[in-house]
């Protein structure tokens, strides 16, 4: 029994389940709520099964339909992709529970299919082992995300989503261009094969430039973040959560993968450029967040800042690769949980007060304690305060920066942390006070509150299982072996 159970093609299930789920939701909109929830639970179970498999047996390969490269599709799971899949499943679960009561009926039928398609795209993206599949999934993800972002139906939402769509299409096209150039030069799409054949020539440079820039645009690194804050702030809360937590991370994941496997062979200073832009993103994003008067915009700008931290790993990885990359991955995980929790909490506040103006929050700490707790716990992780996943990643990042005496980056991280505290407590401080103009509170269902708390709790719990999770990252040594660990 155990053997057959473990041999179940979990990876395929991860793609097919949400796909069929999404289609069925589309076909039977009246039961979409139940279908969607069941699907997401199935995805969660599959991710767990896959995790069990990978932890038990190491790196996982799967040839879809028995066809290998170049024509077949190959799935590949190592520690990095496993963690991405698991955090996706977790966030998906939280968001789905939240969405049960969030959307009105007419919106439920639009939300669930799109959301499950998005989940399909995400899972497929993390499972892909070749760059063209990465392109397809990236594009699918982008389209589903854009469609979801319009769900509020407001003018702002449409404009923001339009901008988002153009940006994401442009990014994908640049990426595709790069893929084409790579294929032309080296005759393969498989990442593993490419990494063997790769050599530095003018086509490779162009491909590198196009792919990096395309992905940077989709990851919303400063100054390419122009599309993110309006899109994330105007989307419905669960959608904002998914966009910030997962969609942005997916493109970063591709960048990380390609950088590690392929482009690391280029002798380049782009890592320093990335580090520089990341630093500016941290400061700029935090300052912008501090300026905002609306919670959702504040949280969205916070994402801009946090994305900056991810890019700090590039310059730091030069000498202490494993530590720096682990830090980045850890940050992806904890930020995914924390930021989704934060957006969900912001959604609750919006639902409760009918607005999300920070200055007009009315004693929400007493009236929505669980929501505020979720916001605060998520904030702890975002600020990088212990005990939380954010703290662990910040610790690792600081450590790798200090080992190399990168004082500039050290300073940026510290300032970023202080600024993060400033903007988070800007909200929390108002949670205790009375609003100048009291208003009729809306009803916030308990599931919505607890879903936010669940995710925030996850971000905090990540701070306690660092050694286990860092061990999982090492499966299949995605960051290369032989580097001296700290």
């Amino acid at each position, binding site marked *: 029994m155990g053997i057959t159970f473990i041999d179940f093609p979990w990876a395929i299930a991860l793609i097919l389940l949400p796909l069929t789920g999404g289609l069925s939701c589309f076909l039977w909109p009246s039961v979409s709520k139940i279908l969607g929830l069941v699907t997401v639970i199935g995805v969660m179970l599959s991710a767990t099964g896959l995790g069990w498999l990978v932890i038990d047996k190491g790196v996982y390969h799967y040839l879809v339909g028995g066809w290998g490269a170049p024509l077949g599709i190959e799935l590949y799971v190592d520690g990095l992709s496993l963690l991405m899949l698991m955090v996706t499943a977790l966030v998906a679960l939280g968001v789905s529970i939240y969405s049960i009561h969030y959307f009105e009926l007419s919106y439920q039928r639009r939300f669930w299919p799109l959301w499950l398609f998005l989940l399909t795209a995400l899972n497929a993206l993390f499972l892909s082992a070749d760059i063209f599949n990465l392109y397809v999934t990236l594009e699918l993800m982008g389209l589903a995300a854009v469609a979801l972002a319009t769900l509020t139906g407001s003018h702002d939402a449409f404009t923001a989503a339009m901008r988002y769509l153009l940006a994401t299409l442009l990014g994908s096209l640049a990426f595709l261009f790069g893929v084409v150039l790579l294929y032309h030069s080296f005759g393969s799409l498989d990442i593993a094969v490419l990494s063997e054949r790769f050599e530095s020539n003018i086509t490779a440079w162009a491909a590198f430039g196009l792919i990096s820039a395309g992905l940077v645009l989709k990851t919303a690194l400063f100054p390419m973040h122009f599309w993110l804050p309006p899109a994330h702030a105007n989307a419905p809360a669960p959608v904002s959560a998914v966009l910030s937590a997962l969609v942005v991370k997916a493109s970063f994941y591709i960048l990380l993968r390609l950088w590690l496997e392929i482009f690391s062979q280029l002798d380049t200073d782009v890592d320093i450029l990335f580090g520089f832009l990341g630093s500016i993103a941290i400061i700029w994003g935090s300052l912008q967040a501090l300026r905002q008067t609306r919670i959702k915009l504040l949280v969205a700008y916070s994402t801009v800042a946090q994305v900056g931290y991810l890019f700090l790993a590039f310059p730091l990885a030069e000498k202490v690769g494993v530590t720096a990359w682990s830090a980045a991955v850890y940050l992806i995980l904890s930020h995914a949980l924390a930021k989704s929790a934060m957006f969900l909490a912001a959604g609750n506040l919006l639902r409760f007060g009918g607005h999300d103006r920070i200055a007009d929050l009315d*004693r929400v*700490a*007493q009236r929505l*304690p669980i929501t505020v707790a979720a916001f*605060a716990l998520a904030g*702890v992780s975002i*600020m*990088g*305060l*212990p*005990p939380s996943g954010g*703290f*662990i990643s*910040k*610790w*690792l990042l*600081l*450590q790798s920066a*200090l*080992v190399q005496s990168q004082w500039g980056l*050290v300073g940026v991280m*510290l300032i970023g*942390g*202080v600024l993060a*505290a*400033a903007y988070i*407590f800007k909200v*929390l*401080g*108002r949670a*205790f*006070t*009375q609003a100048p103009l009291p208003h009729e509170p809306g009803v916030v269902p308990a599931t919505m509150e607890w879903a936010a708390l669940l995710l925030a709790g996850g971000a905090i719990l990540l701070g*306690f299982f*660092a*050694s286990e999770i*860092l*061990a999982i990252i090492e499966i299949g040594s995605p960051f290369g072996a032989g580097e001296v*660990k*700290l």
Partner: protein
Amino acid sequence: MNWNAWIPLLVVASSLLPGLIIFRLPEERVRTRITLNLIGAFLKLVLVGWMLWGVYQGQHFETRLALLPDLDLVLRAGPLSLIFVSLSTVLWLVTTVYAIGYLENSPHRSRFFGFFSLCVTATVGIALSGNLITFLIFYELLTLSTYPLIVHRGTEEARRAGQTYLAYTIFGGALLLLATVWLYTLTGSLEFTPRGFIHGLGEEHRTALIIIFALFITGFGVKAALVPLHGWLPQAMIAPAPVSALLHAVAVVKAGAFGIIRVVYDVFGIESAAELGVMSPLAWLAAVTIIYGSLRALFQNDLKRRLAFSTISQVSYITLGVAIAGPIATIGGVVHLVHQGIMKITLFFCAGNLAETLGIHKISEMNGVGHRMPWTMAAFTVGALGMIGVPPIAGFVSKWYLGLGALEVGEGWVMFVLAGSSLLNAAYFLPILHRIWFRKQTAAWPHEHNFGNKETAWALLLPPVVTALMALAAGLVASAPFSPLEWAQLIAQREFYQP
């Protein structure tokens, strides 16, 4: 099964779990909340007593959980830890009783007691930390869990005080994080070791070490309210009295002072720190804080603000004792950790009683209040005289060892600081005592509550009287076994004399 490995964790959990449960309790379940609180407090007391006894007999209590691949979360009961743990445990029990009385019928008690328990958890965690990262974790937890208590009243003023508090502490925390990580990259260890663990580093790291030390002191100095990082403390007095009493007089500022002790003794080691030449600036900083705090206290008319500035001044005695860097001064500094806590909590309890029973907040309103509330004011008198250093109250013992320690290492100037500070203490406390006992009541009390023929509620009266008696006892039977002084001597012995 080795129980000793779990006791430190249990000590931490004994306030964490009740706290978490209390968060979810409905407001009206007063009795359940009180029971939970008291069970936690007593359990913690018993466990700490057990550890005290065990450590006295040479047993080891250590909990070790993996945090990062090569860094553990360590909770360990050493003599230094225990002196702080015992202080916070005993005072938690007392303050819980007090808070129950103080907050009777006020809103949001579940939230208050929940965060209160969290604060105690953090404080105990700080005390028991066996390495710097554990310390840091609990230190930040303390910052976060104190914030809701400061803004508890939910007024605009409270919110602003909370923001100020955070501005200071988050900044301090960032510096601490930097210092800790930096030290870790240099030494590869963060484990608290008697006499420090930086000996192996060569001369080339000297500058780095000095900067790290400065970062630590600045980081901890925020909570220890060293001038010029003290600005948050007087503002934080907006919080309810039990919070000011336990947290701002004991837990939070002590956490900072305790951090300085840890860094000097168990991270750098006295000898290495002295070699780096960082001790005398620290001593001067402490001296300036002592005098400055006392001077500012003179000008306050708000009772709690005066006490707050007094705290700023008094807590620096601890730093001073550490910075003088002799065995006897160490005893003085460490024992003042306990003594100041007991005395200052007494004073804050009494201030709270005045506010709660009679609505008195200003010193100018205190004329003749001794006749109305003799017991409370007797406790206040003991606390105030102890702060001045009047024998045989606890403060005398600390000042004694500080002065003696300074003489021992030939730092005569400290005597003048002590004398000046005592004089100033007298100048701002004795007028209050005079008003209390010898002036006639001039106006009606601002908001008098009636408690029958008693001066105030039992739960409000008992805690200050108990702590005042403790302050007296700490001085009178200073040489008894298990007294704070004896423990401080044990600690100093470990730091200075044992190989």
